[in-house]
Each structure stands twice: as structure tokens, then as C-alpha cells.
């Protein structure tokens, strides 16, 4: 593996983040803070504890996961879509660089931004609610693995999209609804039995549950199911990207 091209892509993507600090970092932090104010302080004060955790603290892992999924997808999709849109992708495709190096550069940068954001939001949430992290290693494990997996998904979307509308389609119409319905703001125990069963088909439930377990030791599904689901996602995304590069789908005529 040649690390120079990986470094070049990674640094260029991170430089874009620095150039667009308001949009990349400040905006998601503010919007997540608003969730804390509305759901944690205003509405949360009227909701009793959930599984022994105050409601404000209960929603922290879900909110971080919501931001992590949406930001990972949009960072990575924009990163690869923009060269396609501007035409400068010719340089990437004609460079002596392997598919793996391309993916590490783009996905690594997108995941880094999301992880950084996740940690900033975690620190911010400490201002609003008392926080405890029961299993810090597992918290980092879920944070990193989710950021990487959804950055891979974003990379796929960026290659698939042929316009800005499609770029927004999956984050807005798929990721956000699944996250809202995936137990970010509630425990699925609170749903009627029928909806509990339906909800188990939502993959985000497993991510939120595992991540929340790393904070408070409480979960909707088992830790093994959460790890299994995120691993399955990771493998599916890697497989799809492998296929894209093998066939040149939407990259090479």
C-alpha cells in the first residue's frame, strides 16, 4: 500500500472540513444541543426515568447515534460526489492508486469528522445532563465502527447519486426516519408488543441499543445482536464497494 495518496485524499477532505467549519462542525453541534434543550430539559423534565436513567441522559446515546449516522453518510457521500460533479474525478481514476487506498482516504476522513463530532456532542451533552459511561471501550468501539460503516454507506450513495437531490434522498428519507424510529428517544419496551416486533426489523435499533448499553448497561437487544448487526452492515457495504470498483459502476464507462 502506498500511503502518499491516502494521505493526500485524507488531508484534502479534512481541509474541506476546516474551510467549512460552520457547516461541518458548528451546525450539527447546535442542532443536537437543541434536541437536548427541547427533549432533555423542556419535555424530559415531565417524563419519568427510563430503566432507571433520567430521560435527559437516556437520549444522549440516541442523539449521538442520530448525528453519527447522518453526518457519516453526508460527509462521505459529498466527498466522493463532488469530484464527480466537478469533473475532477478524472484525476482520481487515472492515478496509480488502488481501490482500497481510495476508500481508506475518503471513508477515513468522513469517519474521522463524524467521530470528532460525536466526541464534541458527548462533551456538550455533559453541560445539559449528568453523564456516565459504564463501558468506555465499548462506547468507542460502537462510535468508530458505526462511523466507518455509515461512511462506507455514504461513499456508495455518493457514487450512485447523479444529482444533489439523490445525494440527500437516502439521509433524509431513510437514515433519519430509521433513526427516529430506532429507539433514539425511547426504549422499545415502551411500544405495544406488535410494534416492538416490527421495530426489531429496523437495523438502527441494534446500533442505538448497543451504544446505549455502553453508557448505562441497559439495552433493548443483546450486545451480541448489536455487534452482529453492525458487522453485517460493514461487510455488506464493503462487498458493495468491491463490486462498484470491479465493475466501474457509475465511475468508468
Amino acid at each position, binding site marked *: 500500500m*502506498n500511503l*502518499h495518496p491516502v494521505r493526500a485524499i485524507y488531508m484534502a477532505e479534512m481541509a474541506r472540513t476546516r*474551510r467549512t467549519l460552520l457547516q461541518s462542525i458548528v451546525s450539527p453541534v447546535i442542532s443536537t444541543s437543541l434536541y437536548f434543550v427541547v427533549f432533555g430539559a423542556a419535555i424530559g423534565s415531565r417524563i419519568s426515568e427510563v430503566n432507571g436513567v433520567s430521560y435527559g441522559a437516556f437520549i444522549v446515546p440516541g442523539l449521538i447515534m442520530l448525528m453519527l449516522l447522518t453526518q457519516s453518510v453526508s460527509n462521505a457521500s459529498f466527498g466522493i460526489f*463532488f469530484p464527480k460533479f466537478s469533473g475532477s474525478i478524472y484525476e482520481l481514476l*487515472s*492515478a*496509480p492508486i488502488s481501490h482500497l487506498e481510495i476508500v481508506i482516504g475518503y471513508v477515513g476522513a468522513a469517519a474521522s469528522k463524524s467521530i470528532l463530532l460525536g466526541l464534541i456532542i458527548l462533551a456538550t451533552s455533559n453541560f445539559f445532563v449528568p453523564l456516565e459511561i459504564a463501558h468506555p471501550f465499548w462506547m468507542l468501539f460502537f462510535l468508530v465502527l458505526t462511523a466507518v460503516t455509515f461512511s462506507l454507506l455514504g461513499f456508495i450513495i455518493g457514487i450512485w447519486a447523479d444529482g444533489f437531490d439523490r445525494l440527500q434522498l437516502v439521509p433524509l428519507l431513510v437514515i433519519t426516519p430509521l433513526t427516529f424510529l430506532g429507539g433514539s428517544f425511547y426504549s422499545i419496551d415502551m411500544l405495544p408488543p406488535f410494534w416492538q416486533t416490527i421495530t426489531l426489523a429496523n437495523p438502527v435499533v441494534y446500533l442505538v441499543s448497543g451504544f446505549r448499553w455502553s453508557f448505562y448497561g441497559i439495552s433493548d437487544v443483546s450486545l451480541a445482536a448489536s455487534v452482529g448487526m453492525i458487522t453485517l452492515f460493514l461487510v455488506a457495504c464493503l462487498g458493495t464497494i468491491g463490486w462498484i470498483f470491479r465493475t466501474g459502476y457509475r465511475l468508468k*464507462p
Partner: protein
Amino acid sequence: MNDPIITIKGLNKTYEGGFQALTHIDLTIQRGEIFALLGPNGAGKTTLISVVCGLVNPTAGNVMVDGFDNITHYRQARERIGLVPQELTNEAFETVWNTVSFSRGLFGKAPNPAHIEKVLKSLALWDKRNNRLMTLSGGMKRRVLIAKALSHEPRILFLDEPTAGVDVELRREMWEVVRQLRDNGVTIILTTHYIEEAEEMADRIGVINRGELVLVEEKAALMSKLGSKQLTLNLHSPLTEIPANLQRFELSLAAEGFELIYTYDGSQEEDGHAISEFLTALEREGVTFKDLNTRQSSLEDIFVDLVKERA
């Protein structure tokens, strides 16, 4: 000279939908030459260089770059190539320095600020190194694309329509840059539909039309082989028709009979036999002239003839 740096064999490209962009292309590019690929719009020039550079997958055939297959040994093949695309494509918000340094890294080379400085200075971009690309003129953006292509010190440079849409002064500047590169040992392959460009710069010329390589020839040999010559005589008295004894020559009248134009095959004219025979016949007929000039057909005439022939 037989030191091939690019060898293309049996190259075909059929796009999804059935359009055949390239048909059995065989071509060898010699090390250190300037090769011009000439053809009308849609002839297959860009597809051909895109296949060589790895931007388009070939349907059949293979490309060797300095001894390396451009698919199985893509790293070795591609690191030898720099590509300047036809479109002015770049990251509008990046600075000149950053975008050129990025290209060097992307092509697997360690940072080398001294080399980037040398490239920017050679292209008169040094003063603009901290400017964002969006603030540059079209000509400067094209020079930035050349700088990006040269950032990793390639041995082969592809220039796809390098002077499309640039003014005459800048075009001449570009030609000078290309000549300097060749003098430094870089092999240049340029596509163009400006005949003047090929005529001015190329050592060899390939003509491509409808995906087929119609011919490949040394520029001088091509012009001598295919170029016809014209001798124009300004007559003292106008002629109303070609005299009968001169009918065996390929003649035409112009300027209301004051100009007599003799077209002859320049390649057969090494000993001046055709002209002396014609002038002798002219004297016998008593046709006198006050001035004369000769003109060799340009590459443009040759190109138009070739493309018409194959149409």
C-alpha cells in the same frame, strides 16, 4: 528511432448502448516525440486517451505503457502518465499550491515543495500560488491543469485539446511550454482538431475518424506524400478558356481569367520536371505572365481530403 513508450494493440471500445467509439486501434508512440492525434469532434480522440489513462474500460485489446500493461500493472503504467483533460475541471475553492501538491500526493509521490515551485514557475503560476482556482482566468486554469499533470514528474503527458477556447497569444505560450517539456524528455501526445496546432508542433500525426485510425505518418512525410502543390500565374492578358495544347495539365482559371492555376503532385516534383514542362508548353502557346507564386497544401487540406475519402 524505435523506442516505443506506448504500444496499443487491437483496441476496441463499444459503449453501453452499442456505440462503437474505437475500432481495432493499433498504435505505437515513440519515446520523446510529440504525437498529434487529429480528428473531427466525436472521432474517438478522447476515448482513446481515456482508455490509455485508465478512465475508460476497453472492450478488447491492450495498452502497454513503458513495458507495463495499463490494467494488470496499472500502478507502474499510470505513475508514468500525466493527463491534462479537455474540460477545465478543478476544485474551485482550493488554492493553486494546494491543488498541485494534492495531485503529486495522489500519484504516490512524497511531498516535494521544490519541484512544485519549479513547475509553477515554469508555467508562470508562481505569483498565483495562494490564489483560489475560482479567481483565475480560463487560461490560467488550464495552466494549473498542466501543473497538476506535471506535479508527479511523468514521462508521458497527454494533452486533450490543450488550446481549445484559448486566445492566440496563450495558444503560442502553450506550444512553447509543450516544446520545453519535450526538450526535457517528456513524450507528448496531444489531441486536437486545430490543424495549425499539429502542423506547428507534432513530429508525427495520427488521423482518427469515426473510431478508426486512418493513418499515422511523420508530419513532414505526410505533407510531402499527400500534399499537392499549386503554381499560380498572374497573366498579362486574361484567358477565356484553357488553350487546347495545355489541356493535359491540371489547370483552372481564376480572377476573371487573369490567374492561371496549375495543380501538381508535390511528392513527384523533386526534379522540377512537371513545372519546367508546363512553362515550356506555356511559352509555346504565347501565354505570358507578370508574376507567379507556389503554395503547398496545408495539413488542413490533407486532413479534409482524408476525412472526405473515408466518409
